[in-house]
């Protein structure tokens, strides 16, 4: 016997109204306000908002080579963090899904989730300690110090769970028999990984990369803590908003990652990975 879902009645509609309103007004409204503010400017001296339409912010953005540099650097870090996380997540997720006993698997899932319970700041400062020239890493003879390297390490650490979890879910969906079939047909482990595992979990990888990529694109706090003198897109936005009090310029620059992410999601949509989120 099969039960068909009833068509949604007026009651369901009412239930959906508050979240839809929230999405429409609060969420998209905030984006709209951001977009609008990008066309305003501030009084240079007092820092007060001047609500008059101008394209100055965008002109400055596209003419100032420093913003191009910072945008490219941010993109580069985002790509690097995503790659590092992908390279780390694949074997970890594979071990969790296909090698570990059910008991060990549960423990590992908890271990992967655990860092998410700790405050972001605590973890970032922990890495500040790790990366310090007199920190634990220096005892091992590696001391990257504060800067791009330290930043990539820290961000890769911070976002790793967001990569492992979807990839783990993807690996779990992959039937063991496919791996056995590949091996049975003569493929050594590497070939099986490349030709069967990787294509199967690719959508999951893309799903994870959406997290690692966008979280890196927007980060500015970890940069301040372990990035040394490095500036990222988020820092320029935060400095313009919080320090220079130039909300319009901050808004204009903040539109850049929004556009980048929309472009990325557009590409991703073709891979069908959005269904795996």
């Amino acid at each position, binding site marked *: 016997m099969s039960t068909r879902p009833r068509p949604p009645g007026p009651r369901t509609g009412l239930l959906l109204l508050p979240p839809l309103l929230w999405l429409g007004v609060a969420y998209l409204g905030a984006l709209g306000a951001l977009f609008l503010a990008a066309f305003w400017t501030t009084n240079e001296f007092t820092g007060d908002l001047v609500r008059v339409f101008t394209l100055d912010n965008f002109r400055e953005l596209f003419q100032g080579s420093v913003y191009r540099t910072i945008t490219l650097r941010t993109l580069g870090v985002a790509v690097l963090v995503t790659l590092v996380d992908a390279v780390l997540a694949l074997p970890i997720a594979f071990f969790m899904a296909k090698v570990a006993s059910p008991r060990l698997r549960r423990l590992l899932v908890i271990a992967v989730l655990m860092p998410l319970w700790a405050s972001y700041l605590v973890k970032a400062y922990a890495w500040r300690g790790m990366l310090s020239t007199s920190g634990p890493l220096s005892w091992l003879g590696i001391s990257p110090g504060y800067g791009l390297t330290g930043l990539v390490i820290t961000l890769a650490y911070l976002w790793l769970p967001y990569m492992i979890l979807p990839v783990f879910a993807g690996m779990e969906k992959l*039937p063991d*028999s*496919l791996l*056995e*079939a*590949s*091996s*049975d*047909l*003569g*493929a*050594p482990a590497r*070939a099986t990984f490349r*030709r*069967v595992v990787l*294509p*199967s979990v690719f959508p999951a990888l893309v799903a994870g990369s959406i997290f690692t990529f966008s979280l890196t694109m927007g980060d500015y706090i970890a940069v301040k803590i372990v990035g040394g003198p490095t500036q990222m897109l988020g820092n320029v936005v935060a400095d313009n908003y919080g320090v220079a009090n130039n909300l319009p310029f901050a808004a204009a620059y903040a539109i850049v990652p929004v556009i980048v992410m929309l472009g990325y999601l557009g590409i991703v949509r073709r891979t069908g990975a959005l269904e795996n989120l």
Partner: protein
Amino acid sequence: MRDHAVSPSIRLTNVAKTFGSVRAVDNLSLDIADGEFFSMLGPSGSGKTTVLRMIAGFEQPTTGTIELAGTDVTAMPPFRRDVNTVFQDYALFPHMSVLENVEYGLRVKKVAKAERRSRASEALATVRLDAHGDRRPSQLSGGQRQRVALARALVNRPKVLLLDEPLGALDLQLRREMQIELKEIQREVGITFLFVTHDQEEALTMSDRIAVFNEGRIQQVATPRELYESPTSAFVAGFVGTSNLLSGAAARSVIGREGMFSIRPEKIHLTDVPDGASTAAGTVRDVVYLGSANHYVVDLDAPPDATGATPTLTVLRQNLTDDGVSRRGDRIQLGWLPEHVIELQPPTEESA
């Protein structure tokens, strides 16, 4: 090292496999000849799949050795063994087309593209799927997928093909067709087929030899005819066909001897009892209509058997005419020729 010419295709020597406290395979030794269609038959959980997986290399035997064509492969990884498997769930790669699936084994062995293509197309033609190479496995029916899995294994020209209940997921009609087709293909390619099934009829129709499994052990290895006509144990007699067991006081009363006996249902006469036949009287408990024939279940007028149950014989009778010989509750006389009484080995202490 043994001579290759006389080496069996597969040789298992004292192979055992335990999972924790479960003894999946218990001290098994078996030789399978080159080009043989060999079936492993047994109830679910009797260890057939485990034997197959050990031969493929997916499981390591706890003890014992496995040889393929005279070479010890016990420690060899699956991708080095010259065997291919047709999985029960087919295990087709969903992200590849049918043709790519079939090509896979050649691709990972770095066979040149042109040769790969032609061999794969050829293999698809063998299973009559050459028109479907561009499709995804998800776009095929169950029977078609099964044939793709077969082509994907055969294209590698293995010495041995392992098949784990390959027809289990198909409906009866298709299964019958595929049984014939499989047998034909095996004859064509002439390689050893090691076939796992729990369906006795399937095993009997397709196999050159059958090993009957129970609880991780082989009960009997024989040709289908031997197995049916002369099962050596109550288990085999019961698993292959209907057994009609008589033992204990029932055996003494009906057969006139001590021991355990079986008479196949089609060997028992209901009315036209021939000369020289042994007879017994009973009451019809049930008549089961089978279409071309009827099953008569008859409670014998005899003391209970070794298990304490009323001795019962099932009789198969062709539906030639509706002669209405017997209905439920009718008293009836049964007869059989002495040569059709099969004497079984008494159950060993262990398995009792």
